[in-house]
């Protein structure tokens, strides 16, 4: 046992015996591992945010569709749904796209009834929008930064309405710690949103909250509601109902699919890395062959040389995996995913204006270490074995 530990000790010393080789090995591995860890962390952070969105949202979402695309519903749809047995609440909502400023920055305008705009002051700096007077808006942090808007700022009319346009005033800004979808959000009252889009009688969806145990029954009966049957006949609008469970169910399959493709790309990158390591570690390094030849000539056995190489590989891969983890953490926590967030979140600039969500989970970190170990082992053990099985006189030449 002591003998094995002594050999392992020479493996540790071998890391410093060829400092350039060790450095190239660690840097090359870290260069491949850091983007992988950052990508997986951003993806898992966003998944956690999406799960919260589904969990804290409504039980059912009723939308309209025509030709496979979203179509508005009449405003009275919410009233009709509210009267159904088992429905606790049904709120109309308007969600649409607007553009703001001379640079035509895209934003998502959301209109909600006034009664929903209470009791969530903690998510907003300033106050929540109220009806009457100029349109009152709560805007997202990215919009506030891009348009240089502060609380109390007035926006000239940014829309077209035949009945005339009104000024809008910023009364609040979402806090940066809110979910990332606040970045380009503009929140206002339902009536204000209807006037901005010039759609006084239409909404985009109805948020349905059901009484306990009624959700499935309400979802089934919604599509059969005479109001919606009439709507389909008169306006060809088909009603679509999405439940919270259906939404949550789409997450794992999508992530597995896209995560699998992502990991496949990194497996290819590692495959290329093996060739790089072959060149840098063993095949082209005559000095290493000579060293193994000397060890053999002084009485070392092949398995002892392989153990020495294995310990050296373990140290290098551990250093690379830990270094990559440190760099990934710094990039995400300190650098706020600078430069990389836009590859994983559409609509984010190079420097995100809000804390980018991420989860640096142990499983990808462990996987990174295992892949790094396999790579370095491949680059070290095979050349070492070849050199160790060659007659020492030839190896030393």
């Amino acid at each position, binding site marked *: 046992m002591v003998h094995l530990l002594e050999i392992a000790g020479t493996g540790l010393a071998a890391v410093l015996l060829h400092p350039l080789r060790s450095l190239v090995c660690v840097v090359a591995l870290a260069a491949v591992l850091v983007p992988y860890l950052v990508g997986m962390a951003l993806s898992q952070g966003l998944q956690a945010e*999406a799960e919260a969105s589904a969990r804290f949202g409504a039980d059912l979402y009723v939308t309209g569709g025509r030709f496979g695309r979203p179509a508005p519903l009449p405003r009275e749809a919410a009233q009709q749904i509210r009267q159904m047995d088992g429905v606790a609440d049904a709120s109309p909502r308007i969600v649409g796209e607007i553009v703001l400023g001379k640079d035509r920055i*895209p934003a998502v305008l959301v209109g909600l009834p006034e009664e929903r705009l209470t009791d969530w002051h903690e998510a907003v700096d300033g106050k929540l929008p109220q009806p009457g007077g100029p349109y009152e808006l709560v805007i997202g942090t990215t919009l506030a930064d891009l348009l240089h808007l502060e609380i109390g700022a007035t926006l000239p009319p940014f829309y077209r309405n035949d009945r005339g346009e009104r000024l809008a005033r910023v009364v609040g800004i979402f806090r940066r710690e809110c979910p990332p*979808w606040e970045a380009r959000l503009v929140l206002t009252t339902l009536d204000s949103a209807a006037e901005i889009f010039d759609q006084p009688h239409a909404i985009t*969806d109805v948020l349905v909250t059901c009484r306990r145990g009624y959700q499935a029954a309400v979802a089934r009966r919604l599509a059969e509601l005479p109001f919606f049957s009439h709507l389909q006949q008169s306006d060809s609008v088909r009603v679509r109902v999405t439940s919270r469970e259906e939404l949550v169910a789409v997450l794992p399959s999508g992530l597995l699919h896209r995560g699998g493709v992502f990991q496949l790309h990194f497996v290819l990158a590692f495959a290329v890395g093996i060739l790089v390591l072959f060149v840098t570690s063993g095949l082209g390094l005559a000095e290493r062959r000579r060293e193994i030849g000397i060890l053999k000539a002084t009485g070392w056995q092949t398995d002892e040389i392989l153990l020495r190489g294995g310990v050296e590989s373990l140290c290098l891969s551990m250093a690379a995996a830990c270094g990559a983890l440190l760099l990934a953490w710094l990039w995400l926590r300190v650098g706020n995913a600078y430069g990389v967030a836009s590859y994983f979140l559409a609509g984010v600039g190079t420097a995100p204006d809000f804390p980018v969500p991420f989860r640096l*989970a*142990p499983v990808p970190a462990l996987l990174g270490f295992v892949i790094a170990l396999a790579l370095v082992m491949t680059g070290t053990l095979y050349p070492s074995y070849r050199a160790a099985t060659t007659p020492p006189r030839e190896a030393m030449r």
Partner: protein
Amino acid sequence: MRPRVVLVVLVLLVSAAAACVVDGDRPDARRADLAEPFHHALGGLGFGPALDLTEGCFGFDPRLSDSSLGSDEPIPAVAAALPGRTGLLFSYHPPRRGGPTRLSEDGYGPSP
């Protein structure tokens, strides 16, 4: 002397990496506190990798539209450089509504 130096450096690196994972895997308490009132009031808005509707509703929130046209780019991250395509690692398929469809004997199923 040399093996000890390497060993000490490795132990420090592993400790620092473990601390990073512990910190990175912990949910942000402030963010978690704000998520509930935010989504509760908005009725749950935002689900996907897009922060606006320029590429359609699906990438922003599939509850608004389950039309995933143009948002199922199979090459992650790389496709983000292409204009008009979401092409992101985090993605999903349209939700399946109403469970499995049962066909009648004449081959017709119920209306979705």
